[in-house]
């Protein structure tokens, strides 16, 4: 019998396995001297933790801090405004991934742009742009590229195909960001405001899909230089519970190491071919603004100068807005993303700020902490 789709998740959502891990963690946690604050960097983990109610299974001395890793949530209004303006250009088809089209900019979301007449499309894979370009030879296809290390190779593969096939009507607006830089920022920025922080990140839950591409090696510096352990974890509830158990064991045994829970696909080196493709086409930006967190050095990518003929940011430079947009005054997403506050502590949570009318980054996509609290509740 061949492998079926259900084999990929069935066992990893097994109630008995989850309960067994909860029991192990509860027993082990009795030996802990202090509370452990675990930051799940990725919004996908936040989603899993809330959707499957995992905090309800954990003892009170293990706490989750929700991290900034959701490509949709962290996109600042300035960049969405770029996409909006580009989509309004007469002969442009603006293409992006999934629920990016819901995120509000200052004029509205790409969904709003579409309802106002622009041609905005979402795709499952950037390579679908090739088909759109072929079917619309008189139009300019702009791929609004977003996401972390997981989606970057797909954008690189599209550019690779565009160059090899000498396609003239596909362009790129690059918004790819990287995980280690924001993790570093969260630890470093803590030192500047040390008095105002209630929480401390003791350990990181690293997203497995990032490491499938980049390897676990990208987190080496955190145990070594920052004394924060990292466990690279899959996204199923059994994966997360196993990873939590591994973290607790490290604390009991006095270790601070980089470990991989998701050994099904993650290796130390990752996918070297994908990394080579990224290296070939992208440079680091000096600064990239994250919604809710501000400018973070070297955290974003851009096309290398030799590929400027494909760069929509350069080609359309004259029409793209350049001003900075402040985050909403009442929104505390920055604090939530840094682990200082919980979503219900925000005065506009669930009232002025809801998934249907998000104000802050954490409410924007279902993977944001606020959206997950709003949608799933925090039932104990």
């Amino acid at each position, binding site marked *: 019998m061949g492998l079926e789709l259900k084999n990929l998740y069935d066992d990893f959502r097994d109630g008995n396995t989850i309960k067994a891990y909860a029991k192990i963690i509860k027993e082990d946690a009795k030996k802990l001297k202090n509370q452990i604050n675990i930051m799940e960097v990725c919004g996908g983990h936040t989603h899993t933790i809330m959707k499957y109610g995992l905090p309800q299974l954990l003892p009170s001395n293990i706490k989750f801090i929700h991290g900034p890793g959701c490509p949709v949530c962290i996109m600042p209004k300035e960049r969405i405004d770029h996409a909006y303006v580009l989509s309004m250009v007469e002969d442009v088809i603006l293409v992006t991934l999934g*629920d990016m089209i819901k995120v509000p900019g200052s004029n509205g979301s790409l969904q709003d742009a579409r309802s106002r007449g622009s041609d905005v499309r979402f795709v499952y894979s950037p390579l679908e742009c090739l088909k759109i370009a072929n079917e619309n030879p008189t139009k300019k296809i702009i791929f609004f590229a977003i996401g972390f290390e997981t989606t970057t190779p797909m954008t690189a593969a599209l550019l690779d195909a565009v160059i090899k096939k000498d396609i003239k009507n596909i362009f790129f607006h690059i918004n790819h960001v990287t995980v280690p830089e924001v993790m570093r920022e969260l630890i470093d920025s803590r030192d500047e405001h040390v008095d105002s922080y209630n929480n401390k990140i003791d350990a990181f839950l690293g997203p497995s899909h990032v490491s499938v591409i980049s390897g676990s090696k990208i987190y080496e510096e955190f145990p070594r230089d920052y004394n924060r352990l990292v466990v690279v974890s899959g996204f199923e509830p059994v994966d997360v519970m196993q990873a939590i158990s591994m973290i607790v064991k490290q604390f009991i045994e006095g270790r601070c190491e980089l470990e991989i829970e998701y050994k099904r696909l993650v290796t130390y080196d990752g996918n070297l071919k994908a990394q080579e493709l990224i290296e070939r086409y992208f440079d680091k930006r000096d600064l990239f603004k994250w919604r809710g967190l501000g400018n973070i050095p070297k955290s974003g990518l851009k096309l290398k100068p030799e590929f400027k003929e494909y760069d929509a940011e350069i080609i359309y430079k004259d029409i793209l807005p350049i001003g900075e947009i402040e985050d909403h005054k009442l929104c505390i997403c920055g604090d939530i993303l840094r682990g200082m506050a919980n979503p219900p502590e925000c005065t506009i949570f669930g009232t002025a700020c809801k998934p249907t009318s998000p104000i802050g980054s954490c409410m924007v996509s279902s993977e944001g902490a606020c959206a997950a609290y709003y949608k799933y509740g925090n039932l104990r």
Partner: protein
Amino acid sequence: MNKTISLACGNGGEENNELISKVFYKAFKNEILEKSEDAAIIHNGKLAFSTDSFTVSPLFFAGADIGKLAVCGTCNDLAMMGAKPKYLTCSVIIEEGFATRELDKIVRSMKKELEINGAIVVSGDTKVVPRGSVDKIFINTSGIGEVIKKGISSNNISKDDIIIVNRDIGCHGAAIFVAREGIEMTSSLKSDCESLYPQVKALLDANIKITALRDATRGGVSAVLNEWASQSNICIEVEEESIPVSDEVKGICEMLGFEATALANEGTFVLAVKKEDADKAVEILKGFPSCLKATTIGKITDTHLKKVILKSSWGTSRFLDTPSGELLPRIC
């Protein structure tokens, strides 16, 4: 409300509700409309009256087509009020250039489904509009049904009731997604599109004490449960494991990051029946070939009024929220 209407306003979820209450209910306010049932109960409770428009793409898909959908949709809304569908109107808006052969195929499909319901089309209208004004063909059907069992209402659910679903959920939404997005998948997945009156009739004939019925169309089972929780001021607690979902639908949800409870259905309905009749109701439903997976999924409590709680097999619980926004795949 947004200044312009977005696709999310037609999702059967939160934005849809907002649009209806802030624009239509505000203007048309009256006692019958405010009951917010699947069909309006009129003429001293003797008749049920409903309307629906159909704009599906593609027009033909695994398990049904827009014609079958247009008859099932309106007849099912009537059946959900305990009414036998009797008279329908049929109004079509056709884009110029549409193939007559396809139109004929759609109408023949409607005829077949009308026969299953024992209903007839008694009035109609045809408009042809310039290319680009509509996407191929839009069909509106309105229907009048004769109320067989009075008092079925989603406003009266109480702790004496048990929640049942008639079959595995999400097949229509998943089948349409596969057809629309050209996902190449070998599977037996097909829409659940089906007339529900025969099932309702069987329950009524057996004297099952039904409190409420609702077909879980756009917004899926989660929208129905949330509407019920809100309309009857109750908390509905659902055991996640008991909700029947086929492997094919689970697979689609897995690939795209959807929840089966938010996917649309066209032949799936949720029932609130008195506790003592629950087992019998499930047994009757299982007598229909499409309903072998009919089952009890939840009960009524007062822990979180107006909310639906989903309980996992490992002892955790969370809200099952009303779907919001356009159904789009997750990015990662």
